[in-house]
């Protein structure tokens, strides 16, 4: 092939393939655009989406299973135990480290930590990313009620026990007295 024919073949090929390309792009000219106008329209977020965590605090028992499962230790929690009831101090998730892997969700024995469908977490200050998952601090109201009731019950139980013990002691003492009398009579 001579240089001249080579040159013209190049030109013809370029024009031909470019026209094919233009035909393809031209098809889209009249179609509806697929752009989602974000703040007004939103793409559907599936149920399984791994977004910002949320905690069902009532169920949580402060067992640290999620914190142990986390590869980067971004979960920190602190609570004080009063018998069965928990007084919450903090439960933070550090989004400066979190990689949304969902490994924290499945070890939970009470199924109380979840990943929601919320994804936009934007801030001017990165210290805000240490996110608090608690919906209340300290003790829950009904937990207090439960605790007071439990304490009352405990007290009542103890009193009952004491009374019982007292009665038993009296019985024992009487028996002992009887025995003593018997013994003394035997002695006599």
């Amino acid at each position, binding site marked *: 092939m001579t240089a001249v024919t080579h040159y013209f073949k190049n030109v013809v090929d370029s024009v031909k393939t470019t026209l094919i390309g233009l035909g393809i792009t031209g098809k889209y000219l009249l179609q509806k*655009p*697929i*752009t*989602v*106008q*974000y*703040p007004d329209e*939103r*793409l559907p977020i599936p149920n399984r989406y791994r977004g*910002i965590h949320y905690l069902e605090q009532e169920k949580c028992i402060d067992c640290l299973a999620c914190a142990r499962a986390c*590869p*980067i*230790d971004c979960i920190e929690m602190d609570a004080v135990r009063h018998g069965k009831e928990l007084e919450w101090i903090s439960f933070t998730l*550090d*989004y*400066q*480290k*979190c*990689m*949304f892997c969902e490994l924290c969700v499945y070890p939970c024995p009470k199924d109380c930590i979840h990943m929601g469908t919320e*994804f*936009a*977490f*934007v*801030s*001017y*200050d*990165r210290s805000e*990313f240490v996110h608090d998952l608690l919906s209340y601090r300290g003790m829950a109201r009904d937990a207090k009620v439960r605790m007071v009731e439990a304490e009352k019950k405990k007290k009542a139980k103890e009193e009952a026990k004491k009374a019982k013990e007292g009665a038993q002691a009296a019985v024992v003492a009487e028996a002992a007295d009887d025995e003593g009398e018997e013994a003394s009579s035997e002695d006599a």
Partner: protein
Amino acid sequence: MGLFEKQFEDNVLTTNVDWLLNWCRLSSIWPMTFGLACCAIEMMAVGCAHHDIDRFGAGAFRASPRQADLMIVAGTVNFKMAERIKRLYDQMPSPKYAIAMGACATGGGPYYKYGYTVVKGVDRVVPVDVYIAGCPPRPEALLEGLMKLQEKIQASSVIRKPIHTV
């Protein structure tokens, strides 16, 4: 601005001029093509048809820092790269902004604990205006961050004296 910058008291003229200048700035934030890691793919997705960052006037991805206003640090920064990021940021003309996209750029992310070469937060190298959580954040989250940055620009003072808080 030079001579007029941050010189004037609040009045009808200066506040309106400020509003106009800020509006101009926020409607044409040109980001720099600066993908580092996984988040760069989401940044590309934002530039593409589904999310189309051009709607915010921020679609002109510039390859050169000299033409860019915004640096989207999209990905993990390590020590070898940190010096380059600093240099690129210094090359950008003022007013310039930086977005830390994703957990790695914000605070080291998953590499916080064992990543011996990872910089624990790009704000140790360059000043950051907006942080976005996620690993990687959804494209919508980046748009959300951009809107947050626009709010910040709108609130800034150009020829007015800045309001000092004690």
